[in-house]
């Protein structure tokens, strides 16, 4: 009893209160670090080689069609006053362009990541909420309502500035144009197409857009974006979804079509091709460039030399550092191991 009383004030003798919790005390000694560096270095070099080879094997064909140069076939279209302008770019492949081939369009000096631009949309409207068809969010300004006060659907700068050049690819076989089928499905994120963006449930879709106007820049209203496929209209149009996912940098490319059908599923065979461009999108005003890119992809995505080279450099660096450390430690006779 008295003993208990004596120790009543005494602090608890637990490992925690006495700061004596069992602890692992790692020391980064040369014995661990040097072999570690060698292993990491070798692994990185291995990955780097694999990445580099993979990236080298990806075929890419880029065609700038802005039409700045006077000898370009699209030069005639560069004046924005020319409407419905078509131009053709011819190219030839001397070997099979392995499939599946992806067609991208690329824009440069185009700031989709501009803050005010990015904010200029109405997320609620794009989920099909009809309340926002009549009164779009104020964030859509200056593309909220037209001059007559009618609400714009879909509203906002992003939707308004959708990329509207069109591409048609023909293989020239015996001076006859054979259309290469371009597949517009599966170019947007599955989650965007199926969950994030929704059309109003109104049937037919057109009725939901009563008393609204199409975006000023658009030639057709949203519900007629793809006349060939009714399920590719409204807010879940694949091209629209691709455009709505803003690019990270001012020079970007976006997926336009895939070549997955018919005899071209295995790739584009060697031969001559004609790319017919419906030139609508003005870029000259802001010094932009437009290009079309044909590319196939690997497990790591599109062609990107950076990763492979970076892995090779870091891997070699690790190996070199381990050698340096070995020398230093040999000279100083491993003082901590003594």
């Amino acid at each position, binding site marked *: 009893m008295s003993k208990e009383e004596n120790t009543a004030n005494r602090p608890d003798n637990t490992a925690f209160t006495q700061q004596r919790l069992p602890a692992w005390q790692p020391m980064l000694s040369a014995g661990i670090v040097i072999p570690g560096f060698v292993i990491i270095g070798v692994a*990185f070099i291995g990955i780097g080689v694999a990445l580099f080879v993979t990236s080298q094997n990806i075929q890419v064909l880029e065609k700038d069609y802005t039409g700045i140069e006077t000898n370009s076939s699209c030069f005639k279209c560069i004046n924005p006053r020319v409407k419905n302008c078509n131009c053709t770019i011819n190219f030839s492949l001397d070997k099979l362009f392995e499939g599946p081939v992806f067609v991208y369009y690329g824009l440069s000096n185009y700031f989709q990541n501009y803050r005010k631009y990015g904010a200029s949309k109405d997320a609620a409207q794009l989920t099909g909420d009809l309340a926002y068809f009549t009164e779009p969010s104020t964030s859509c300004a200056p593309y909220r309502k037209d001059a007559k006060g009618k609400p714009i659907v879909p509203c906002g700068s992003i939707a308004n500035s959708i990329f509207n050049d069109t591409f048609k690819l023909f293989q020239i076989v015996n001076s006859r144009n054979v259309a290469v089928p371009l597949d517009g499905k599966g170019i947007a994120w599955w989650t965007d197409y199926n969950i994030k963006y929704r059309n109003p449930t109104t049937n037919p879709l057109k009725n939901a857009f009563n008393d609204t106007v199409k975006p000023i820049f658009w030639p057709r209203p949203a519900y007629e974006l793809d006349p060939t496929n009714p399920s590719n209209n409204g807010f879940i149009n694949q091209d629209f979804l691709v455009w709505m996912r803003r690019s990270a940098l001012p020079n970007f490319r976006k997926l336009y079509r895939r070549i997955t059908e018919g005899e071209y599923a295995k790739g584009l065979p060697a031969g001559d091709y004609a790319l017919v461009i419906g030139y609508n999108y*003005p870029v000259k005003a802001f010094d932009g460039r437009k290009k079309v890119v044909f590319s196939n992809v690997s497990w790591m995505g599109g062609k990107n030399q950076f990763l492979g080279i970076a892995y090779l450099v870091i891997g070699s660096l690790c190996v070199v550092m381990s050698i340096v450390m070995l020398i230093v430690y040999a000279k100083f006779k491993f003082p901590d191991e003594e």
Partner: protein
Amino acid sequence: MTQSPPHHPPLGGDESRVDSRTIYVGHRPSTTEAFIPPKFCDNRIVSSKYTVWNFLPKNLFEQFRRIANFYFLIIFLVQVIVDTPTSPVTSGLPLFFVITVTAIKQGYEDWLRHKADNEVNKYPVTVLENGRRMGTESEKIKVGDVVEVNEDETFPCDLILLQSTRDDDTCFVTTASLDGESNHKTHYTVPDTEKDLDSLSATIECEQPQPDLYKFVGRMHIYKTDREPEIRSLGPENLLLKGATLKNTQRICGVAVYTGMETKMALNYQGKSQKRSAVEKSINAFLLVYLCILVSKALVCTTLKYVWQSKPGQDEPWYNQKTQREKETNLYLKMFTDFLSFMVLFNFIIPVSMYVTVEMQKFLGSFFITWDRDFYDPEIQEGALVNTSDLNEELGQVEYVFTDKTGTLTQNNMEFIECCIDGFQYKYRDAVSELDGFSATDGPVSKLQEKAGKEREELFLRALCLCHTVQVKEPTGRGQDHTDSMAGCPPPHEQTGFIASSPDEVALVKGAMRYGFTFLGMESKKMKIMNRSNAIETYDLLHVLNFDPVRRRMSVIVRSKSGDALLFCKGADSSIFPRVRQEEVEKIRVHVERNATEGYRTLCVAYKKLSPEEYARADADLQAARLALQDREEKLIAVYNQVEAGMTLIGATAVEDRLQEEAAETMEALQGAGIKVWVLTGDKMETAKSTCYACRLFQRGTELLELTVRTLEDGVRKREERLHDLLLEYHKKAVQDVPPTKPGGNRGWSKPSQDFGFIIDGASLSMVFNSSESSSSHYKNLFLQICQNCTTVLCCRMAPLQKAQIVKMVKCSKGSPITLSIGDGANDVSMILEAHVGIGIKGKEGRQAVRNSDYAIPKLKHLKKLLLGHGHLYYVRIAHLVQYFFYKNLCFILPQFLYQFFCGYSQQPLYDAAYLTMYNICFTSMPILAYSLLEQHICVEVLLDNATLYRSIAKNAMLRWVPFFYWTLLGVFHGLLFFFGVRFLFGNPALQANGQVFGNWSYGTIVFTVLVFTVTFKLALDTRHWTWINHFVIWGSLCFYVIFSFFWGGIIWPFLKQQRLYYVFAHMLSSASAWLVIVLLILLSLLPDILLVVLRKPLGPHARQRQAGESGAGGAKSSAQPLLMRTFSDESNTVV
């Protein structure tokens, strides 16, 4: 005594003074004057800060007075008002979190205070009102009420004692809760008040409330119907303080003079000034740097934005047209708004959470001190006490330790060793065999065979028995369990215990008892002693001339049976010798000095026979001085000096004060840690010097530089000149001739070939400080330089204020070193308050030092672990915490800054708002908190064994500009790497195997993922002590980040306007390239750190330093072998 002195100013003469108050006892008006009830505050104690109504506004106001909170409030308001890139939630939520947590903490503390207040205010008390006893509540007591208090109750307000049930008109109280002194103090009733309180008609005139617990002056006018009003003086001995407890007395009645917030207890309640640690200053400096970075970033971005926009086509491309309002806005206003927007975008660089984390770290970390069992002392059954947690890390930065001697270095456990009567020595070693030690057989030292005359012996012993303020503990009293001073070995027949405020007195009374004179106690002003022939002698106690540290002596005036008035005086030699006949001095002086060099405390005893005329005059003067309302102190001292003159020296005593346990080891460890130890004591030089030798502060090789009255008076020249010469000489020796040591981390490594010790006494010090104005600063400078080059400085004969002066001087000297004061008594309070860190020792001299300290420990030996163990760890922890916080926020915000160059300076955030908000709160806060609580980069045992390790963190080593620069550079490096690594990856945004592309939020998420992992791994790399908590928190944080990101992107959150991150994280994980770049960037970021850790070991300075340090410590140990053939053991650290 019943008559007021003739020269006393007439009644009412002082009444016009504003700073006195008049109290009508029992609210009964004196017959002669018109009764206007004066207004005083009520007896409610309010220690709480808030009420239910004003809590919110008052607390918010107080919180936003802190500069950091205010800054975040401004940012938040800007976000609300201006169209900014991030929503107000991102900064509002953390701010709200911080404010709420603080408010809850403060609210809870205030609720506790309310509870405590209520307990006091609702306490039932008894008030006498017109002869009836009325029960009421404590808060209803008014000034002038007559209050009745029973035994063991605390006084509800400050009372003047009117009546006691004890027949000697005294009562006993303990003031344990006020100043911690648990001994019983005697208080006296006002003499000659009526036994019948109902008919008492009196007024009390006293000073306005003041906080000094031990000062009170007042007068009481007693009106009787048939006579002139009588006047009684009132002093602190009549005043019962609120908070004190009545002991050994059945019941008392008193009149309330100060109530509520005007009681001395309440006036003393005011908190002491806040001490700020050096780390905090570093934080503020870093904060300023980061604020500059922030502003310059915002400025750069704003400027570039407008430069960029001036190019045609960039300002307003067709796809991104401006709204009407934007077009109309004034250009300069737009610029300003843009600037603010950038500020908001980058404001996360100054982390709101750092303050919370630092505070949590300090608060929680201080528990480890309280919990430490090594600080537990079984004797007093207490452990360490932390009064403020703000200074934990300062314990690792101490450069100067100022220690008190008595009770700190020594135990304050006094034992009577010997005495000397008329120059003959009486040694007392063994109590049992020498009970009759005064016979000439075995008591004396051989060469002093002869003894003083029997009469002189008995006079001396009577003096010891009478000249004190000791009380005999009543055997029946409840106070039995209180500490007495019987710890020394009491002879078997000693049944009684003694209680005194000073242990010296008890030792002396006990010493006299062993020689046959026993003090039996006091009964109604009569002191009873039993002499050697077991007869009882009684003396009337006429006056006590109290001890005070300035006079350094105390006296009593008693009247013996034969009617002679005798004055006995005891005190320090320096204060007694000038007051006795000089021819007696020399015989005694030899003994006194020899005893002093052996480390004993010596007191001289003198007496004087007062002739009736002399006594009458002294009595009158004393009465007059005691009645004075103004300058009572000064007047009393003047009278004391006058009375205590022309005495006869009888003898001297020597009392031993043992060294504290492990005092020498502790001091040695401190010196090994590069800390300079200064001993500041009120004791005399010889005693203090011997203590210093015993503590190994001075060593054999130490050359002592003395600047004392003795050395100053050597020559024929004037003291001032001599002072000048000595200072210059010492300066030359200690400063100029010593090769300068290398500054920086190597401080004190190469020990100077010659150790210097410096000794100065109070008188010389005041000469240094107060010499003519032109030379004063020069002398001070010289003095300081000498002291800084000495390993140990001993300042003796210090008044409390001088101690603080010294501390202040060192504190303000060049480089503003961190100072620590340690002491146990009331005389150390001033220096404890003055120093950066004040440590109180829970000693015997009451609790005042403990109450005013920042940390309190039971024993001196605990200081070693407190500084070398806890202090070192706390410093490393918090320094790392601070640097890491700045680093992790720099590499958090830098990519966002760089992104502006790629998005047209449009303030587009790189990360999602959730990530911006949660980064500091959730993802990266817990690991660093755990680190800062648990890290032991070197385990405690090693820290304690190698005191030199303490030097490696000296001078704020981890928070200087170089390490700060390193961390900043690291942050910049990481930030650049994160951003540009991903930037190159996004050269082709088609990163998925199905050819789909990533957008801007994917970009940000990849950067953020790399960021969270890298900063966490960086901390993991720095962690040297992985407990399960560290594992749990580090891996848990990373898991939490991944899981959170999945959920955040996996669900359509109805409360979010935009589902920006919908499935972004999942898509990222499905991309092999993203994985590869994340791994690559994390590894590349950590590479320099790993290299540094590995290469520092063989190349860095630490390896060699450690070896040198170990050998240095070893050398010190060997040189510290017992000096002067003394032996030191735990049992008796005595100087034999």
